[in-house]
């Protein structure tokens, strides 16, 4: 039985994990860099252990001190949160070697889903629809040409080790192909130390739809329906909602089943997310990738299902069998999440760290705040700029949006610029209100 969790993360997700553990009666130790000694997680955890200086490479990414902190503080499990070491199979292997429970899926699932080209291949073989494209890695311009002959233009070249838009190139015409292929491989090499790329048919204005999964170590897998994460800026999600306003009941059922199948193909045994591209014109959806970790936007699924995902992650890691069956999981109402970042939306979303001199967070019905900041806190400049997640629930999408608007109005932060004004604009935008928006929403309407 897990009795103490070491949290190998920072910010709001560290706080989120402390909350779940506290409610379960599990002790918490949080690691922190010297830049984070005043963080909310440090204040809330039972124990806090400094593991290094501000740079992530020497603290939050530095296995040795993290594992040593777990061993010396007698933690029997590590929760990696998201980012940092969350999808690093070497780290999860190292945990296992030290007899520390890694709160996440087995290393093999991380590895197989981590290689994007391999994962696509695996999905294709499991009968999960994938975007037409190359059979795995495209290692030469010639093989790129062969692929394109099958798919037709436009296509997108992606880094196999990739993420975050790095090493990606969209190609509309044959004559651009060679140059784009070389660029993508070079960029992939620079960003990930791995030049391998693959090719997919490019879908111009898709929706980003993802399905939340819970699998246990006893072969049970359930889904918690989909999230619509199509409001993105440069491949960074900014607003998420559940359910998706453009998925009907039948599609929802089908998507859920396919996501469960995808998870089962790697014997997935934690909380995870299967991401799909959804072509709104043809009503087709295609497997994109699986994230083998808890995600930033998990609260919207929690709000509509009432299920605490972090608690289930911990229970599953502890070897417990899922006590919920698919038929018991019901949606109620609608939920939205706005990521409030310390960025200046008027200046191209430039990060804007600094001291929060006054903070009043919204409250009342249907409002949830997941945040790692407080009045008087100074946001360090070393890490990501997310200050808080504002989550709004309503009996239907309209009420959820009205609540979100009200919450954004109420949110009062002095001392730093945030993306609150941006979110207010989105919440009243006709295209957003229609629910039919796609991933190009921001570049099309908000730039």
């Amino acid at each position, binding site marked *: 039985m897990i009795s103490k969790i070491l949290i190998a993360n920072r910010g709001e997700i560290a706080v989120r994990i402390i909350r779940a553990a506290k409610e379960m009666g599990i002790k918490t130790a949080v690691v922190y860099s010297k830049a984070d000694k*005043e963080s909310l997680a*440090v*204040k809330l955890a039972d124990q*806090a252990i400094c*593991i290094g200086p501000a740079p992530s490479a020497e603290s939050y990414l530095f296995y040795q001190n993290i594992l*040593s*902190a777990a061993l010396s503080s007698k933690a029997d499990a590590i929760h990696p949160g998201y980012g940092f070491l969350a999808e690093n199979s070497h780290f999860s292997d190292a945990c296992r070697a030290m007899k520390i429970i890694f709160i996440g899926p087995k290393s093999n699932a991380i590895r197989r889903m981590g290689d994007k080209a391999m994962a696509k291949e695996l999905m294709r073989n499991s009968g999960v629809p994938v975007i037409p494209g190359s059979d795995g890695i495209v290692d030469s311009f010639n093989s790129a040409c062969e692929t394109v002959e099958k798919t037709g233009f436009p296509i997108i070249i992606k880094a196999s080790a990739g993420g975050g838009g790095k090493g990606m190139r969209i190609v509309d015409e044959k004559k651009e192909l060679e140059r784009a292929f070389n660029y993508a491989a070079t960029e992939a090499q620079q960003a990930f130390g791995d030049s391998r790329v693959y090719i997919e048919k490019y879908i111009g204005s898709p929706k980003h739809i993802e399905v939340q999964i819970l699998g246990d170590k006893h072969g049970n897998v359930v889904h918690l329906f989909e999230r619509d994460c199509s409001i993105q800026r440069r491949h960074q999600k900014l607003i998420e909602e559940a359910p998706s306003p453009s998925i009907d009941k039948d599609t929802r059922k089908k998507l859920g089943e396919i996501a469960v199948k995808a998870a089962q193909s790697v014997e997935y045994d934690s909380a995870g997310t299967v991401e799909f591209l959804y072509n709104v014109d043809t009503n087709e959806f295609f497997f994109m990738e699986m994230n083998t970790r808890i995600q930033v936007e998990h609260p919207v699924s929690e709000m509509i299902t009432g299920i605490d995902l972090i608690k289930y992650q911990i229970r599953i890691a502890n070897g417990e069998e899922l006590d919920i069956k698919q038929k018991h999981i019901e949606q109620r109402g609608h939920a939205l999440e706005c990521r409030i970042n310390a960025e200046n939306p008027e200046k191209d979303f430039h990060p804007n760290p600094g001291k929060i001199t006054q903070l009043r967070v919204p409250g009342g019905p249907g409002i949830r705040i997941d945040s790692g900041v407080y009045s008087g806190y100074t946001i360090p400049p070393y890490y990501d700029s997310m200050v808080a997640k504002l989550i709004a629930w309503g009996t239907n999408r309209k009420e959820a949006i009205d609540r979100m608007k009200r919450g954004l109005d109420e949110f009062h932060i002095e001392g730093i610029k945030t993306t609150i004004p941006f979110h207010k604009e989105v919440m009243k935008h006709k295209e957003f209100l229609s629910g039919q928006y796609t991933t190009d929403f921001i570049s099309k309407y908000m730039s």
Partner: protein
Amino acid sequence: MIFKDFDLKKLFQLMQEHEVSELSFKDGKTEISIKRGREPIFVNTAVPVREAQATSAQTTAPRPEEKELETPSKSEIPLENYHAVTAPLVGTFYRASGPDAAPFVEVGDQVKTGDVLCIVEAMKSMNEIQSDVNGIVKEICANNAELVEFDQVLFKIQKNG
């Protein structure tokens, strides 16, 4: 001038006594600037964060904010004028090489550069921590078999030789 019979130590004591937090002074044309009272310092009472008190270098007087954030320390020795040996990694602190062995050093011992002061066990590996100065051990700041954080002060040494 008004500072005639003052030495700095007395001045600091006086400032502390009266919660004067800033004082600047210029003689040429007599400039004075005094600041009293502090920002309310948030003292974390919920979580026992063991603060790294100093870096591995000749330390200077701690700023009042840092003083406030220290946990109730066993230390009565101020860091001024001492050399601090800090933990370069996170792990479990051991004063001896084994349960039955004698401690590497005791308070009062003369040590020289390269002498092993303690072991920090990290991921089952034993890491010897050596002194980087010649001097006398004035204080051992960590408890045997307990967790030490990154940069935590382990020993205070009075340099000599």
